[in-house]
């Protein structure tokens, strides 16, 4: 086969996908601000996306904070490690690891669940049925999920920040014999409002990515069980990659000065 034909086809299908995604996001976001609003559904989704993700995110944060403390201690034990460990754990967790690892864990959990649910609704014609019942599927299905994810992800990451720092504290005081009071003082001295805030802004963006990717791939799934499976995989993979890419862009913007 002609190489140029293959390249052309790949470029065209990529552009078509980007176009479809842009249209999808526009349709969904435009419905966020137009009544009617489905508050009950938003609350229900907040429970599913946020509350039920707490154990996963908390465990991730705890072990990450602990491992981070050990790494810094082993890497820099000739210097004044007692102050360095506390500072770097606090900054690393709130700025980067809390939002990114939390976002990735929720992406795996929630994007997949959304894509599978909406994908099944698509192949069983339930989404078409919504249209025939005078209900806009974007408003009824997509908007509550996106709004709920954008609200709950920062809350989740805030909890992850606290538990992550606690993980570092437990390891430092438990197995590295640091002084608990000094550790807390160092954390409080170096941690600034901006560090936490930047992480929470990132988390809101990640929430948008997670819900949008789940909904987009679910909405466009076709071809029965296999199609739903493919949509689920694509949702998790694209959400994860977009989270990492968006994290880089936001880090370079938020910490440029």
């Amino acid at each position, binding site marked *: 086969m002609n190489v140029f034909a293959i390249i052309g086809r790949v470029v065209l299908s990529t552009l078509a996908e980007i176009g479809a995604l842009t249209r999808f996001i526009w349709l969904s976001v435009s419905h966020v601000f137009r009544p009617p609003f489905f508050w009950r559904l938003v609350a229900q989704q907040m429970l599913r996306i946020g509350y039920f993700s707490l154990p996963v995110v908390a465990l991730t944060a705890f072990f990450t904070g602990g491992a981070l403390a050990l790494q810094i201690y082993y890497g820099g034990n000739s210097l004044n490690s007692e102050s360095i460990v506390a500072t770097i754990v606090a900054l690393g967790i709130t700025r980067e690891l809390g939002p990114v690892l939390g976002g990735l864990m929720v992406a795996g959990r929630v994007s997949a669940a959304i894509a599978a649910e909406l994908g099944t609704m698509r192949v069983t*014609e*339930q989404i*078409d049925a919504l249209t025939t019942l005078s209900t806009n599927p974007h408003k009824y299905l997509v908007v509550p999920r996106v709004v709920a994810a954008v609200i709950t992800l920062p809350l989740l990451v805030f909890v992850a920040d606290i538990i992550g720092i606690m993980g570092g504290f437990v390891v430092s005081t438990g197995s590295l014999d640091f002084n608990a009071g000094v550790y807390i003082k160092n954390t409080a001295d170096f941690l600034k409002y901006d560090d936490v805030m930047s992480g929470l802004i990132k988390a809101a963006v990640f929430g948008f990515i997670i819900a949008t990717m789940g909904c987009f791939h679910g909405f466009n799934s076709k071809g029965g069980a296999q199609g739903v499976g493919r949509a689920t995989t694509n949702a998790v993979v694209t959400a994860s990659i977009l989270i990492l890419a968006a994290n880089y862009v936001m880090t370079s913007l938020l910490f440029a000065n």
Partner: protein
Amino acid sequence: MSEAKIELRNVHKRFGKKVVLDGINLTVPKGESLVVIGGSGTGKSVMIKCVLGIIRPDSGEIFVDGKDVLMMDTSEREKVLRKFGMLFQGAALFDSLPVWENVAFGLIQGRKMKRKQAKDIAMEKLAKVGLAPEVGELYPAELSGGMQKRVGLARAIAADPEIIFFDEPTTGLDPIMADVINDLIVDSVKDLGATTLSITHDMASVRKIADKVAMIYKGKIIWSGSRAEVDNSGNDYVEQFINGRADGPIQMEVLKP
């Protein structure tokens, strides 16, 4: 001749290279029941989805009550959609909601009716399709195929629509349940005085519910007439279809061993 409720003029639709609708012309007179017959993959479902606005045709005009729905903006279109009810092939019930909420969905979400009042109407419609009030509290997954179809029918007629679409209403049911559904369709349509457009390949169903019959083949309407004329159509395609013969002008794309 009575006025046209729905009219399709020269409607074309293709997916990639595959032409699905190749210039459909079809008129559904007000208050009548038109049944479109045709084999699998001849474009029957796509045609109905074009009228509902779920799929946008490439070219052509679709009139509902004399107005071209393809030229309308979203809010006008939503108003037109309120005239429609639809029974889907697989019933397409929302499996996250109990049966009564499925039936009342269009009233609660689409028309902002109070839940209490909507529930009363839902129960009344369930009784009309021969289902006991207890069924209203069950979930769709707990019902048999025939019961799901009946709930789908109750949902389609819940908002007293002017136009009802039936997508293969008897497919996948045993002959007796199929006949029950046919009777319910005839009764419920008569009560409402609704205009109906059905697609099916079940000739027993055609003989029971049709006033007029049209046959679709390769994306075109190739024959139309009254129910009585179907059996003496003099059209080779129609003859082959209603008698269910493998030999004839319609050749299935099946490779002979």
